[in-house]
């Protein structure tokens, strides 16, 4: 049987997948089964069309609507020549082949809006097993054996939280999923919800059964409309099928399920702020203790896990905790299972990467990601978004493990991985993240509200060439104090990008402050353009392009730039055909 699947995550749709789908629908014979699937995970190749011929996959990439006829022809004739230019290369295929997909097991494979498709891929089998064959304690035990830890970033053992909520007196209890994925450059959770919403629902229902919750709630950011739409349909379908509601699988377990769309505050990803928001209050963190397991949503025992954590749960029950624990780093304190990373930045192959814990950053960046884009050198990778830190080339062989990554000053985080090359100014990078956290600070505690603002101001003046002697030490002092005094995780981790860039790239800070020089050439205020007289042919093109008439000269003779008048827009360097404009 012939089946065509068009990857339609948000990323695919942005690349034009919906139009490709429409074009295919118009071009294909009615008997060809055309369907939608979630994000296949290779953002750099979108839109992607997968052709399954009795299970045999032909993957076409960077497909345009105009290619629909060629694809139709190929399906009719079987002549590969018509689609040869669209077929994925062996090298690119390796991107997926080298991964181990558990949380993303069905993403890009099933139709996320089709419950039957999910059920055909083991959907709700684990839930059935849990509620009909296992006690809640046995479920928690299995999760304990698996070693599953919170994938939102903190890496707290999932079984421990579930057990604490289970043990907690107070009724009713709530199970909450944190789908307020807000780190810049992170889209793992979105992919799961858009690609396999039933995996999330099933994981949550198992968690609800384990802790004894009467209601499960997904707190998902409103900026994910497609995720919300697919999740809503999945909830409706699962309710209709009896997987949600009263006496699930005929057991005594009953559980409601709903979505709460968050209103665009990064801090609501912090669990206590999320609870405040869920209650209709302003999203601001609460003091801990008490922890949500004792007093959470409406001050009732509540358990909060992130999307990816829940997405692993059904797999663990289906395959056994030991199978999960077999992956990852050694020892009882090791990090088990797999982790999904969203690979972005100056990388050749960006997308979703799920690999077993214990692999190295080099495996992700160079082996799977294919190394740097455009012949540039690797400079560093930012892990964990604004709460994380950067790891330089010297740390590229660090293994993916909570402890090992923390030792670098970075964190595992929720999985954002932004790759930087030598053109990235590390002070600018720190400034970018501080700009983000300063804006996203809820304003409650002094250390974060004013501290991040002051950090941003100092970083800004350094980038503007107005850094002062002693600014690095001032930044370090501010960072230490903020980390110690901030109320919640957002503030406590906000200094990490500054601390790690100072730790690994102190010389770059010093160059900005002392020499008024930006080694990466990214800080506009510190860049100087000049013309190499040996290379300049005196064509006057740069002079004519210059928007402020800062370049002058005589035709046929070397031109020169008036540095005082220059606004450093870089147009001269861009238009020069002889590479005569120097930037430095």
């Amino acid at each position, binding site marked *: 049987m012939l089946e065509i699947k068009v990857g339609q995550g948000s990323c695919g749709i942005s690349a034009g997948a919906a139009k490709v789908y429409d074009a295919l629908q118009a071009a294909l014979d009615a008997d060809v089964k055309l369907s939608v699937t979630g994000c296949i995970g290779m953002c750099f190749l979108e839109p992607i069309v997968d052709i399954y011929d009795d299970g045999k996959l032909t993957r076409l990439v960077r497909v345009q609507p105009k290619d629909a006829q060629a694809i139709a022809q190929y399906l009719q004739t079987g002549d590969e020549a018509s689609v040869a230019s669209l077929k994925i290369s062996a090298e690119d295929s390796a991107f997926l082949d080298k991964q181990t997909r558990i949380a993303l097991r069905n993403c890009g494979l099933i139709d996320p809006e089709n419950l039957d498709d999910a059920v055909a891929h083991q959907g709700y089998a684990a839930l059935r097993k849990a509620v009909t064959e296992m006690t809640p304690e046995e479920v928690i035990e299995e999760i304990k054996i698996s070693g599953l830890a919170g994938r939102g970033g903190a890496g707290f053992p999932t079984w421990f939280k579930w057990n604490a909520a289970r043990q907690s007196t107070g009724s009713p209890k709530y199970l909450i999923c944190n789908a307020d994925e807000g780190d810049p450059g992170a889209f793992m959770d979105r992919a799961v919800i858009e690609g396999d919403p039933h995996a999330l629902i099933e994981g949550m229902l198992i968690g609800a059964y384990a802790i004894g919750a009467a209601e499960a709630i997904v707190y998902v950011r409103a900026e994910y409309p497609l995720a919300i739409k697919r999740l809503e349909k999945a909830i409706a379908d699962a309710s209709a099928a009896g997987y949600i509601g009263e006496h699930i699988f005929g057991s005594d377990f009953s559980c409601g399920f709903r979505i709460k769309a968050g209103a665009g*505050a990064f801090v609501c990803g912090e669990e206590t702020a999320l609870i405040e928001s869920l209650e209709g209050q*302003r999203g*601001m963190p609460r*003091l801990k*203790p008490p922890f949500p397991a004792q007093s959470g949503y409406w001050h009732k025992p509540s358990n909060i896990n992130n999307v990816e954590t829940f997405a692993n749960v059904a797999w663990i029950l289906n395959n056994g905790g030991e199978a999960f624990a077999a992956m990852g780093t050694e020892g009882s304190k090791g990090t088990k299972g797999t982790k999904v990373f969203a690979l972005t930045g100056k990388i050749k192959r960006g997308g979703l990467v799920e690999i077993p814990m214990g692999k190295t950053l080099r495996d992700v960046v160079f082996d799977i990601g294919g190394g740097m884009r455009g012949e540039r050198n690797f400079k560093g990778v930012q892990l964990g978004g604004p709460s994380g830190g950067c790891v330089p080339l010297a740390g590229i062989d660090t293994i993916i493990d909570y402890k090992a990554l923390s030792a670098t000053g970075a964190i595992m985080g929720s999985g954002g991985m932004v790759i930087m090359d030598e053109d990235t100014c590390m002070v600018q990078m720190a400034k970018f993240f501080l700009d983000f956290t*300063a*804006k*996203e*600070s*809820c*304003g*409650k*505690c*002094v*250390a974060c*509200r*004013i*501290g*991040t*603002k*002051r950090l941003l*101001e100092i970083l800004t003046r350094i980038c503007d060439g107005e850094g002062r002697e002693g600014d690095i030490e*001032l930044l370090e002092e*501010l960072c230490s*104090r903020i980390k*110690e*005094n*901030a*109320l919640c995780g957002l503030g406590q981790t906000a200094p990490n990008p500054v601390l790690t860039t100072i730790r690994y790239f102190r010389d770059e800070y010093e160059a900005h402050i002392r020499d008024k020089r930006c080694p990466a050439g990214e800080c506009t205020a510190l860049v100087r353009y000049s013309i190499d007289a040996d290379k300049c042919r005196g064509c006057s093109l740069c002079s004519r392009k210059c928007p402020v008439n800062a370049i002058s000269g005589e035709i046929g003779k070397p031109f020169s730039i008036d540095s005082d008048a220059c606004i450093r827009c870089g147009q001269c360097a861009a238009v020069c055909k002889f590479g005569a404009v120097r930037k430095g």
Partner: protein
Amino acid sequence: MILLNGKEVAFVPGQTLLELAQANGIDIPTLCHDARIEPYGACGLCVCEVRMGQGPAKLMRACATKVADGMTVETHSERVMRSRKFVLEMLLSDHTGDCIAPCSLACPGGTDCQKYAALIARGEYHKAAETMKDVIPIPASIGRICPHPCEKKCRRALVEEPVSLAALKAFGADMDLLENTFVPDCKPATGKRVAVIGGGPGGLTAAYHLRRMGHEVHIFDKMPKLGGMLRYGIPEYRLPKAVLDKEIALMENIGVQMHPNTMLGRDVTLDGLRADFDALVVATGAWVSSKMHVAGEDLAGVFGGIDFLRETALGNPPAIGKTVAVCGGGNTAMDACRTAVRLGAETVYVIYRRTRDEMPAEQAEIEEAIEEGVQFRFLTNPDEICGDGKVESIRLQCMQLGAPDASGRRRPEPIEGKFETLAVDSVIMAIGQKTDFAGLETLEATTRGTVAADTATFRTNLDGVFAVGDVTNKGADIAISAIGEARKAADVIDAYLHGAQIAYEKPFVCEKEVTAADLAGREKAPRAKMPVLPADERKQTFTEMALGFDEETARKEASRCLECGCLDYAQCRLIRYAREYEADPAPYAGEKAARQKDDSHAVILRDGNKCILCGLCVRACDQLEKLDAIGLIGRGFTTEVGAEFRLPLASSICNGCGKCVEVCPTGALYRKTEGQKNVAVDKA
């Protein structure tokens, strides 16, 4: 049991660390906590180092941390102090306001001008006098003669003209003198004795404050009556001595013992007083007229400016004849020329080597002298006083202005060969005053011939001997400077008498920049003019020239005050902690969140600029009053507190209960009295 600062203490289950510390007499600072309201944890000032068992020590918020068995707590460790200091520095770096109004900061005595003006506006004259007398024991006198540096910094000048603070001071103090005059309480006797040498403004002030502190105080003065230069240097028409007498009488009422006609070096000696008293305050002033060193200065009919004024005050006015030349451009010269007019001189010249613009005298004084017929000879300088045994004429060198000198004023230069001669009967040299060092020989002197005193502690080279006012360092200055020094010296001397060695330190305050543009919306209200006797009339008499404000004028004038200074300064916890923890926000100086002032409500005044976002007002409104009229708006650095939709508080459901004001740790909230001028709160 838990270990609290190394001591085993018991606790009640459910008790927070903050409560436990309080129960054990340990003060943990907090800006966002109130016992009636649920812990919130915003300020982070109450952090303590907490260790459970052998675990790592963590900084925990004391307001929200429940005490548990086995805890080890440090409430004031180095790490804790550093974290608290940081929080305060962050808050101060975003704090916009004036702790103290610019007028008060400009006053050498630090008089709370804003407060006495507000109290006068409200008709509370006794309280106004009480406020003045926190610094100045003789406000009715000072209000009349002070060149008022306060008014020079008054921000009302950015709208139209400064508030008439000096005249208001005289008005308020006069009203208080009429009946039920304020008399301060004195602390119980300490048994310590202090001798004050010199009963001028500095000596009187030192005596007054030291007496209030419970010490036995004696003033020794060489003149027949106390008051110093106020009595013997300021003419009657500016300061009626009856007013001064009343104010000095009040000092006697509180037990200051006066010893007039007692001269240092003649009747008493420094060593003798040192033996009899626990501390000495030297405040002998500058009573020697400076010489000009021109030929003929020794002729009969040449007088020193302050000598002339003193003798007139003593009732023995020197014979000055019909035509008088007064040399000099300062306030003493003005006092001398106008006194000469009142003594019957027909022609009075003022000889000044620069022009009117450079004159150090008050503009009003110059104006009034002109009205009284005084003739100014600008750009002339005495060259020789001529006469046979007595003054007959004065030869003047004509001058022109050259390049500016160190003081910024253009330097007068002689025009070669150009002279002018005036026929005069007498010459008064009012060009400056110096210290008489007689009796002070054992004290270290400055190169100017004044007593060397430490500018922070007022100490001299002799133990227990302090010195203030004109006799010290840079020499003669205005009365309020001597008063200010004496006020500060009293604290140092009090500490000294109690065996402590403290230096006076200028306290840290927040200040803000204000421009005319910031006040553009203010309605203009012209400054009240002081009514005075007509020039023709006043020329004939030494009766006080100023007629004083009537009540209506004074209250209206006082209402012009812009209330620059913080209304909650006395009770502000932010400034208290900032000083306690020696917070210095300077390294973190940056943008300040521009929040608004909301004066729409009848009884609640909100100044967002002073808000530290502790959230107490919001929570008090919600949890104590169950109203929820205000909430937090926005995010990050520019978060603010306000009513819904950012509407003015008056348009909200606020019922004016004032619970928010009660809990506010800073001056961001103030409870107004409808229809009345706002007056700063008193110390708690």
